[in-house]
């Protein structure tokens, strides 16, 4: 039963942000692309999602933010992943943010930012590419 292991993605909403329609659609798209998608629900802390990402041993941690708190939350998540020795878990952001923030976040170590108007196929392709580039672990 050595199946091709499914790509595991944890999708989280962090902080005071109740908008989860987009994230549910993304979860569904990734499922339909054959991935195992763990959805945590709303209002999680960075500590919660990093703990969950480690225990679930996901390839990708996807955080959806529509609250404008991205410049606070992403650096915190990066720090916590490092603290947990889990920097091999790739952090992907989704939501709405200014281009200069996206550039800054990439420089900090966010692997990919998939912002508004990203087509579902592009999200699937980006995650597959990240996992392929990382290689087996």
């Amino acid at each position, binding site marked *: *039963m*050595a*199946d091709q*292991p*499914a790509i*595991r993605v944890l999708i989280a909403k962090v902080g005071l942000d109740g908008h989860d329609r987009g994230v549910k659609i993304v*979860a*569904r798209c*990734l*499922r*339909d*692309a*054959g*991935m*195992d*998608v*763990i*959805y*945590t*629900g709303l209002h*999680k*802390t960075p*500590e*919660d999602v990093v*703990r*969950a990402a*480690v*225990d*679930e*041993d996901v390839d990708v941690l996807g955080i959806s933010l529509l609250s404008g708190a991205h410049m606070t939350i992403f650096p915190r998540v990066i720090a916590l992943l490092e603290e*947990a*020795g*889990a*920097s*091999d878990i790739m952090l992907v952001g989704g939501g709405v943010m200014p281009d200069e923030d996206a550039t800054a976040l990439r420089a900090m170590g966010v692997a990919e930012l998939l912002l508004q108007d990203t087509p579902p196929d592009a999200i699937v392709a980006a995650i597959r590419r990240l996992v392929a580039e*990382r290689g*087996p*672990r």
Partner: protein
Amino acid sequence: MTVQASGPVPSRRLVDGVLAGDRRALARLISRAEAGEEECRPALADIHRHTGRAHIVGVTGVPGSGKSTLVRACASAMRAVGRTLGVVAVDPSSPFSGGAILGDRIRMGALAGDPGVFIRSMASRGALGGLAHAALDAVDLMDAAGFDTVLIETVGVGQDEVDIVRAADTTVVVSAPGLGDDIQAIKAGVLEIADIHVVSKSDRPDANRTFAELKQMLLLAQVPPERHIPVVATSAESGEGIDALLAEIDSHSSFLASDGRLARRRRRNAAARAVKIAEEMVRRRYAAGDSTAMAAIVDRMCARELDPHGAARALLATLDEVAP
């Protein structure tokens, strides 16, 4: 321990981490078991030697009966008395894409941040019976990592997915009010496997009826069970019944501890597990085997030269020619 991004760490080197309770090592070995890689088998064999300490509790029931919510409530209550626990939560895979949405964590609330709890979501990946192929490997790993209790939450089952009873020390079957009449309660299957029955959502007005029907069903048993099977009404909303359920789980655990019952149950479970793995191995050998030999047998069956059982015997005979 840090799992290096540069090249995979050999599985056997993760074993000591698991035994020391390292979460990353534990999480990674569960992933390897799930991927079914041969590379991790010796490591899992090492792990297996360190199992048998945890009390394994299975929670099953129809979709939407409140399994995840109940698991959370039980887990919180167990944490409150200082017990650590692992949770293996199985959700279904899509039969079309193979993907899955694993949503059991949504109900886990504050537990997700508690270091005394390790929650792992697992996709069923086409396994029948309510569990995933690697669910019991994950249970072994959590047991070896030192968690006191391991809760297995099955996929939402229908009437006949009863694998959990061959995996758990104690099986809890959750029924929600309003899902069937008293005929449902006398049908064979899932309802028969319970060591403990739970009627969830007991704050709902029709819960009493479900409670009474289950009680009635248990009274009608022609062969009296070895132990009285309790029915516990719970409401995760109000917290009602959760302590009673925990007491029943403990009481069942004590019952098993007497007269060698636990050893007998685990022996039965071990046999079921070995047979299940052997079946899977046979399946894989067919997949890897000589397809022309198989095609010839199928042709003969289609031509009515062989009956289905004869064809199966012929297929089994071809297995000996395939390397294991």
